[in-house]
């Protein structure tokens, strides 16, 4: 069987000709080619890797998206979709021979139907803008990544993004009804429907989380839900991580599905408290934030029960928010975690892995040991309810050996996640960052099937090539090498 290769393909047509065709197809304001114009697009949220693209296309409607794709298809030019560029795994990292197809100008909410509780939106709409538009009707769009003021719905779909509320309200996929997707051929596919299902294979499920490798989302219909009338949060402090981990399990085992269940460890608390003054106890080993929502009446009963469960599980201290202001303050610390940690070192590297909840204390213990091994500090914030770790590794990007150590540290955490039966990514995607880790997560047969799926949509390998699914060749190399931790985990960047 021929080895499927998603790596770079030589453009069949000279770049000059590609640009000329793009100029004919797009208004002047929708095409950037000058180096200073390309600069802002040279990386996404994974800022370690930078590379300006051949050109940036900023289509203003679906027809222009299709025109760009047809030109790329006809000229054999790679094309990389980009929303807001907040992705943390390098999914939207450009290549020198590629057109970056930026969807940020497709930013209209086309229709909001309060009775059907749905919103039809263009891909460049910001996540938060949808909930803002829905708020007057008492509705909300549930998936709420921390980046929600900036990230686009197209990017959310491409990554199957989650948020603090996804344990109870689901990931992006669970709140999606229908997609319009542009293929590399420049055709439109309608997937899903405004009903709750559609005939044939569930291609909405396949496209969601496909990191721009299968098609470009040009429109989506999202499900909205009634905003909960009332929400309250319990802050529980623990003297030891094991107890905090056990408390997470105890809350779930007692039959609660909290609207949010977040954990922060001591270094994270220490970073956040002086910055956000959320009122977190600085001497705790870990804190849990457990939010319940519903009607005010039901919440009183429920909170009393959850508090009892937390105390029985060993919480030293529990505080229940009594007002929306107090609730907001308790959350402010968690929400400020990234910027707060950002003050502790010139740079931080945000990892994203998942583990079974029972492995929580063990993994955090392993991370403590890795801090010593790599000589770098790590603060942990954690979507504890669904086992999604976000270790924040502190380093200085101006010191290359620190970069190498930070990356090796991150990769070892991912290896541990896999070893504990978890995954190398819960919500940030694979991009270029986790290509090697994918070799630990999947075998050759699965990878080969992924490549075949990719070819079914994109026979020429032009849509975001080299991302998300490693080549079998790369995994063979990795398998020979990865036994020795400490090795630089990105021996080769995507071949520009």
């Amino acid at each position, binding site marked *: 069987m021929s080895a499927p290769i998603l790596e770079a393909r030589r453009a069949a047509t000279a770049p000059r000709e590609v640009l000329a065709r793009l100029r004919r197809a797009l208004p002047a304001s929708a095409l950037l080619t000058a180096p200073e114009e390309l600069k802002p697009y040279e990386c996404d949220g994974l800022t370690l890797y930078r590379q300006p693209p051949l050109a940036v296309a900023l289509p203003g409607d679906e027809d222009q998206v299709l025109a760009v794709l047809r030109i790329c298809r006809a000229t054999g030019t790679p094309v990389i979709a980009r929303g807001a560029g907040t992705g943390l795994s390098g999914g939207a990292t450009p290549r020198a021979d590629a057109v970056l197809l930026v969807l940020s100008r497709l930013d209209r909410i086309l229709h909001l139907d309060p009775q059907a509780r749905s919103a039809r939106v263009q891909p460049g709409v910001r996540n938060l803008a949808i909930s803002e538009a829905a708020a007057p009707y008492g509705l909300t769009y549930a998936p709420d990544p921390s980046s929600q003021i900036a990230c686009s719905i197209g990017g959310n779909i491409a990554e199957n993004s989650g948020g603090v509320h996804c344990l109870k309200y689901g990931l992006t996929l669970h709140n999606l009804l229908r997609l319009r997707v542009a293929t590399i051929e420049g055709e439109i596919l309608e997937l899903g429907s405004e009903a709750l*299902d559609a005939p044939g294979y569930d291609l909405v499920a396949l496209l969601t989380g496909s990191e721009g490798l299968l098609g470009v989302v040009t429109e989506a219909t999202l499900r909205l839900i009634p905003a909960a009338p009332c929400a309250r949060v319990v802050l529980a402090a623990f003297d030891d991580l094991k107890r905090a981990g056990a408390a997470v399990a105890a809350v779930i085992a007692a039959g609660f599905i909290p609207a949010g269940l977040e954990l922060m460890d001591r270094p994270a608390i220490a970073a956040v408290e002086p910055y956000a003054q959320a009122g977190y106890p600085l001497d705790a080993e870990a804190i849990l934030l457990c939010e319940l929502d519903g009607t005010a009446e039901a919440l009183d009963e429920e909170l009393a029960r959850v508090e009892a469960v937390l105390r029985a599980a060993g919480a030293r201290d529990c505080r229940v928010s009594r007002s929306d202001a107090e609730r907001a303050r308790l959350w402010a610390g968690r929400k400020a975690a990234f910027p707060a940690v950002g003050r502790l070192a010139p740079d931080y590297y945000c990892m994203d892995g998942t583990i079974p909840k029972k492995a929580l204390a063990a993994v955090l213990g392993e991370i403590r040991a890795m801090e010593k091994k790599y000589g770098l500090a790590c603060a942990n914030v954690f979507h504890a309810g669904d086992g999604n770790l976000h270790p924040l590794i502190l380093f200085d990007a101006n010191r290359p050996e620190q970069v190498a150590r930070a990356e090796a540290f991150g990769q070892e955490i991912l290896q541990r996640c896999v070893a504990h039966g978890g995954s190398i990514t819960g919500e940030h995607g694979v991009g270029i960052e986790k290509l090697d880790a994918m070799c630990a997560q999947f075998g050759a047969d699965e990878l080969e099937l992924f490549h075949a799926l990719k070819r079914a949509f994109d026979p020429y390998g032009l849509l975001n090539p080299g991302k998300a699914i490693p080549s079998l060749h790369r995994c063979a190399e990795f398998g020979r090498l990865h036994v020795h931790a400490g090795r630089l985990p990105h021996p080769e960047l995507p071949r520009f």
Partner: protein
Amino acid sequence: MDAAAALAERVRQAAARAERLRILGQGSKDFYGGAPCGAPLQTAALRGIVAYEPAELVLVARAGTPLVEIEAALAAQGQMLAFEPPRFSGGGTLGGAVAAGLSGPRRAYAGAVRDFVLGAQLIDGRGRLLRFGGRVLKNVAGFDVSRLLVGSLGTLGVLTEVTLKVLPRPAQELTLCYALSQSEALERMHRLAAGPWPLSASAWLDGRLAVRLSGPPAALRAARRELGGEELACAARFWDELRDQRLEFFARAQRLWRVSLPPTAPPLPTEAATIVEWGGALRWVADPAEAADLRAQARRHGGHASLFRAPDKAEGVFAPLPPALAELHRRLKTVFDPAGIFNPGRLYPDF
């Protein structure tokens, strides 16, 4: 050799001879989709719960495990399959439930089968045993093949093991009934769904709307106070009979249509007996005089109609796909099953 390896060997033999296989759990859904054909490939030997940890909300079971066995294990820990898969003739296996992709009354409020599938193992058409997804609640590594398999009616491969997200059973349930016409019922469903009520099912039939609420006692007390209506006795039995299609309506129907619509679509213009579920998003229509028209109506409203159960299925079971999508389906089928051996014709006649 374990059961999955034995099946994989059988698949390899079949692929070499281009022999067609009909994947068979308990056969409880043989009536659904295109007529089954090919040599039976039994999943019965793939039986048992592999792992179940209530605090993780994760259950792993082999595909041939009876649904009733899984539901009993969950009930013992106060948990449930929130998508409420139908148990036709009281039976069904996990693999069959996932392959058919059918969800029950709770679907509109808790999610569909595919929303609860976290991982799957599959024997593809080359006889390879493949693993997708995982045993954790969040996992975006690789394409989401586990969820693509949901509803594929066994045309892409043999499921051997499935990992599901499970949920706690609600502390209490309450069903309220109202005498309403179909259009009044639809309107009431929309109004209730926009409110703070912990809805978990809705159904309109025989001029009555039944609404189930699930949650903590205080929430149900408030709902009981505010929402009026009459409390339905023996409600659990009613919802089970709806879920498993044991109501009189289903027994009488010769040609049963399943019409999936945006919830706000008006009542279908038919005189035929109808059940409305899922807050208006699902309509069951029994023996409509104007069947061809039903499919056109569904399409006009942005939905689709399938001929769910009938002695002959000349109209085709599932709504036809537009050409570009049909072509993509054929390509996907080839990726998984190049020799075209699995459940031919079960989803669409041409593959």
